[in-house]
């Protein structure tokens, strides 16, 4: 039975996918294989394609580990993008050569999936420990020099969660290290609680692995409620009211942006509700979750994309393999309860 850190409680087994997504996922997988045959691939593509293999066929059906060996390795380090993938952006040049925490974790996860006994956990642990910064956090400062205040907080907490999962497997979470990492990821000066559901879920996941869930910041119930505002169903990753221009210091430029609901974010909220102490607020969140899963069951393709202001053109992706896997999980849960 396989699970992945970014898909909480989603069991990746054969036929775990709703039939409404079957065709899309098979098409996505075929395209990923076709491009990978030409050397055009990325760690995120290998990961999503492997997830699809698991929910469609119950096991990896394509040798993504060999694809990663051939195109996503440089000096024995995992790469996020292949050289050909780097050419998808004009003049991206050698910037495709990135050994990110995500790329390290993806390689580790896929190797473990193929043969858990053959994985050199020590090697992966060394790679992530080399990413530890002076501020105590673990992130890709070598990829971009963006200062801590301007770094996406979801990057900080996701990198930490992925890193500590590898460190746990390597038996490195000993002595004072778990507490040091836990206090760093909950330090409000380094990683403030801004109410992003993804950020808070990854923080919770990291603390869970580090056995210091008691350090999780208070007030998640209010953030969960704020992310549901102006939506008929589900939750947005963040509250639109909290979205202000970082430099202008005003919401004027963002006031016409619209929130969107997402199956992935609903899965994160499901985990975060466990941290809600107020019984009424917790019940309200769980009711909304049940209502959202019923909505998805009736409308499985209602997975929207962001829009920029009043322009009706999709701003970024809407339906993705990860969203569809999460939606299938929620619909299955809904079926079990009814």
């Amino acid at each position, binding site marked *: 039975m396989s699970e992945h850190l970014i898909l909480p409680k989603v069991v990746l087994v054969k036929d775990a996918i709703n039939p409404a997504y079957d065709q899309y996922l098979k098409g996505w997988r075929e395209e990923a294989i076709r491009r990978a045959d030409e050397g055009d691939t*990325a760690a995120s593509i290998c990961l999503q394609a492997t997830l699809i293999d698991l929910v469609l066929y119950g096991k990896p059906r394509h040798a993504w580990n060999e694809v990663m060996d051939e195109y996503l390795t440089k000096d024995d380090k995992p790469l996020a993008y292949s050289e050909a993938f780097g050419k998808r*952006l004009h003049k991206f040049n050698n910037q495709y050569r990135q050994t990110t925490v995500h790329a390290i974790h993806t390689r580790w996860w896929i190797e473990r999936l193929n043969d858990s006994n053959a994985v050199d956990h020590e090697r992966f642990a060394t790679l992530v420990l080399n990413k530890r910064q002076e501020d105590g956090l673990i992130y890709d400062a070598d990829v971009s020099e963006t200062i801590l205040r301007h770094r996406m907080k979801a990057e900080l907490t996701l990198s930490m969660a992925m890193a500590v999962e590898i460190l746990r497997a390597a038996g490195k979470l000993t002595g004072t290290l778990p507490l040091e990492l836990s206090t760093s990821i909950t330090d409000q000066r380094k990683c403030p609680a801004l109410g992003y559901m993804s950020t808070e879920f990854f923080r919770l996941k990291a603390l869970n692995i580090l056995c210091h869930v008691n350090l999780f910041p208070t007030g998640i119930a209010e953030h969960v409620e704020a992310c549901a505002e102006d939506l008929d169903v589900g939750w947005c990753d963040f509250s639109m009211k909290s979205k202000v221009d970082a430099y202008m210091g005003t919401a004027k430029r963002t006031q016409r942006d619209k929130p969107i609901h997402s199956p992935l974010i609903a899965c994160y909220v499901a985990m975060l509700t466990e941290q809600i102490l107020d019984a009424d607020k917790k019940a309200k969140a769980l009711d909304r979750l049940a209502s959202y899963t019923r909505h998805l069951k009736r409308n499985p393709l209602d997975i929207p994309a962001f829009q920029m202001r009043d322009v009706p*053109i*999709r*701003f970024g992706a809407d339906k993705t393999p990860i969203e569809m896997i999460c939606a299938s999980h929620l619909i299955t849960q809904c079926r079990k309860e009814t």
Partner: protein
Amino acid sequence: MLRGGNSGDGKLRTMEISLSIKEWALEIADAPLSGVKSILHRDYADRYSHVEPTGAGVARIDFWASSTLCRWYFPLLMFTVFGNIVADPTHEFY
């Protein structure tokens, strides 16, 4: 002004995000043409280079072109237009 260049200062390094916004940028360029692909989409889509997160909350498409031709074109224009009234355009315009 954010910087680009080979070092990539200011560029978003996460390629997946830049690529998923590429479609938006090309469709925006097509939008006023009702069903016809714009020259930008047709001939220059492969020149799409990156996204710069500015924090302004308003997306925009920036065009950049080499200024090499301008260095020849504008002096030529100045000589052609003002050649009869200015004795030495290379100095008297400055």
